């Protein structure tokens, strides 16, 4: 039996986790946690660990969301079992073999997991969600005491579109040259209703806040279109934008590594190209 942790913090990723679980077997138990007191990673893990002990699944699968990784890690610690985070593929066996993500997606690791049940989380967008099949989610109650419990929430007010949810993102890298230089990026973003992102060099230089950073240690985005301006394509940046459906790169260096991952290429300086695009958009819209 495959136990699936029904973390509903992201429905799409949960559906993908279900589809992943199905590659390991047909007998799925989807279990979610009901907690009137609110979220608690160790509290929820206690409940999930209890179910695991009682039902002895061969594999426990969770989505590779922050919550999924966190809860499953707690379960792993409680049961003193190995856990593999962000898997893209797994095959049942003794030991279970799997392929998981390293470096935010720029490298893959093939591994053997020695332990039963195997605890796995699923890398986002490694498998397609199976929309047809539907598995009923059983709810278990979390214990009332927990060592760390969510006690409050402050909402961030974003002017405009949030980077993580945006359908179009326009980013600037080192090539922008200064904080003021981002004006052209912001202009294009405004025309497209897009969010503005940046590379890590930009954040280090103090030109934009870390909340704008796209990358392995910043925000991971999955827009329909990602327009990367003056960004050379370091692996840690690409790890943040590999979820983009289409990538357009604007860079004066035609040898830049970003072009190897791009769908569309423009060779040129963003300070010339981006304003020209903005002007062309206005023209096309009849203004």
């Amino acid at each position, binding site marked *: 039996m495959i136990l699936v942790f029904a973390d509903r913090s992201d429905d799409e990723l949960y559906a993908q986790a279900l589809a992943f679980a199905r590659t390991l077997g047909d007998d799925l138990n989807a279990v979610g946690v009901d907690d009137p007191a609110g979220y608690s990673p160790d509290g929820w893990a206690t409940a999930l660990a209890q179910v695991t002990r009682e039902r002895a699944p061969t594999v426990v699968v969770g989505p590779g969301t922050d919550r999924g990784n966190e809860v499953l890690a707690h379960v792993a610690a409680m049961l003193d079992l190995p856990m593999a985070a962000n898997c893209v593929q797994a095959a049942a066996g003794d030991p279970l073999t799997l392929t998981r993500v390293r470096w935010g997606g720029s490298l893959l690791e093939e591994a053997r997991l020695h332990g039963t049940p195997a605890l796995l989380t699923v890398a986002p967008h490694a498998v397609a969600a199976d929309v047809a099949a539907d598995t009923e989610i059983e709810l278990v109650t979390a214990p009332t005491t927990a060592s760390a419990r969510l006690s409050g929430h402050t909402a961030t007010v974003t002017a405009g579109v949030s980077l993580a949810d945006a359908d179009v993102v326009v980013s600037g890298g080192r090539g922008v040259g*200064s904080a003021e230089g981002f004006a052209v990026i912001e202009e294009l973003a405004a025309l497209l209703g897009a969010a503005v992102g940046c590379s890590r*060099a930009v954040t*280090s*230089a103090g030109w934009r806040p870390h909340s704008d950073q796209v990358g392995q240690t910043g925000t991971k985005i999955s827009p329909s279109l990602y327009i990367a301006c003056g960004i050379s394509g*370091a692996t840690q940046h690409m790890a943040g934008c590999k979820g983009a459906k289409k990538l357009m790169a604007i860079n004066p*260096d035609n*040898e830049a590594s970003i072009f190897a991952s791009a769908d569309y290429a423009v060779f040129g*300086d963003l*300070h*010339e190209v981006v304003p020209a695009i903005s002007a062309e958009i206005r023209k096309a819209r009849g203004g």
Partner: protein
Amino acid sequence: MALAAALAVSGTLFFTRVRLLAGFVQRAAPTRRSGDVPRRARNEAEIVLGQRKLLQRLGPGLLHAFIFWGFLVLVPTILIAMIGIVDKNDTLPWLGHQGWYALLVDIFCVLVLAGVIGALWIRKVQRPKRFEGSHLGEADLILALIATIVISLLLWHATRIALHLNEWPASWSPVSNALSHLFADNQTTKVLERVFVWIHVLTILGFLAYLPRSKHLHIFVAAVNVWFGRTRARGRLEPLKFDDPDIPEDEIRFGAGTSKDLTWKQVLDTFSCTECGRCQDACPAFATGKILSPKLVIMGLRDAVFAQDAEAQLVPDAVPADSIWDCVTCGACIQACPVSIEHVDHIVDLRRHLVMVESSFPAEAEPMLRDVERASNPWGKAQSERADWATELGIRILEPGDPAPEYLYWVGCASSFDERARKTAEATAKLLQNANVDFAILGPRESCTGDPARRIGNEYVFQTFAEQNVETLNEAGVTKIVTGCPHCFNTIGNEYPDFGGSYEVIHHSELLSELVRDGRIKATNNTQLPITYHDSCYLARHNDVVEAPREIVSAIGKPVEMDRSRKSTFCCGAGGAHMWMEERGAAINEERVREAAATGAGTLAVACPFCTVMLDDGVQSAGADLRVVDVATLLAEAIDDGG
């Protein structure tokens, strides 16, 4: 006697002040400025006696030369005047009687007066910008005192002639002689004769006491400062020592944070400054509206030396921080300074303290510093990709244990990682292959020379790279290095010897022009199109390489010079780590591009990867019709086209 009393007062005031100033110099931090005596003597002769640097501006230079040479000629007249006070009928033995000397005195009194009047005209009527920020009142006073001294001398001579007291033949002093007709041989004149000599001597003694309390101090200090100026390797900065076993850790000098950190040469620099403002005029930052004025930096530091406040931070108390960061280390200020002040040393030492102790520097430079240190190049790209540009060209990459090539081609970070600068490396490599030169590159083992770290003030990180690169080069048995980057050229050639690395370093334009001369490269296609060549500061001004790139340009097209060329070149704006910093105010590169465009040439030739990028950026932003291209690329095209 009254004279003795006056001498005593003046002398005391003079010497107590001099002792105070000498104390500042003595207690200052140490630095080495010894050796190379013949060159130093030549500098004294040319710069001090010959007024060579002053004469870089002919008009004001001549005016000053008159006053200076006049001072030299008139020194004995001070003694003559004092003797004349004691005994009306006495003078200096022999010299006091020489007609030729009296003639010289007369001529130079007039020249000095002309100098003073000319100077006053410049200051009051012309009012050039270079005096903005200088103490003009003090200058006026000094000019007035000088005028008083020579006028009173002439008048004294005139009255003596009228009284027939002259010990020299009157006809030999035409001016004094002419003036003497204003006076009759009578009691009034007798009184006036005493009055004039006393005015003369008291003014001199007063001036003497005032001298070390004013910028006129330069008349003694400047000569000393010129002696101790750099005689060679002008582009070399003095290293700091972090691991001297004799210096306890809390006494290590990390640059200049307070006035006590300045070296004795730096203190002398501040005492030599006459506030002439030629450095300010030459400074590209000042010319483009930034607050940096090298003159004001030195004046600010001078005030700090006098204040001797151990707690006051030089930046920002004596010099504003923005001023320090505006500097592109081009050296135009040093080139212009008539008294051998080395402004760049001061600015870099101030940066060193800010960067290494306070960790305070423009935020946009932080990624560059971190990248240099961690990734070994300021672009932050992986060193493993450094030789990617060379893979298809069949260039030999020197691995450990390989035999050393005749030339190690040091490509530099810019030409390895920047797409525009990379073309220069490709062209250079093709030309060298074409000419069958035995060369190799280090590839991924070539790391940043450390120049950007050193110029921004992180001497510690720089030294790590210097030591590492020297080790790599020495182990590889490298003796000759050719490089296309003037910054690498300067650092490896002038600064690596301090870290055990002595190589023969030449710039690619020098090697290429030699190959053209020897016929190993045949530039068959001379288009005769006008090409203007921009001298890189680190190549021309700091290192005197001026003709070799021009030879290449002449072989390809028709050279057209800009006004500010050769050692008077105007910076592209990338030096002093500015390639990675933002620029306030108008752009230095655009200013230079406009100058280039004004020559009417369609091609702007360069010999430096930073100049390539900065001037090309300038062409885009200023909208000029110029092709910016390295001389190596031009040469490679001239061969290809020729077939």
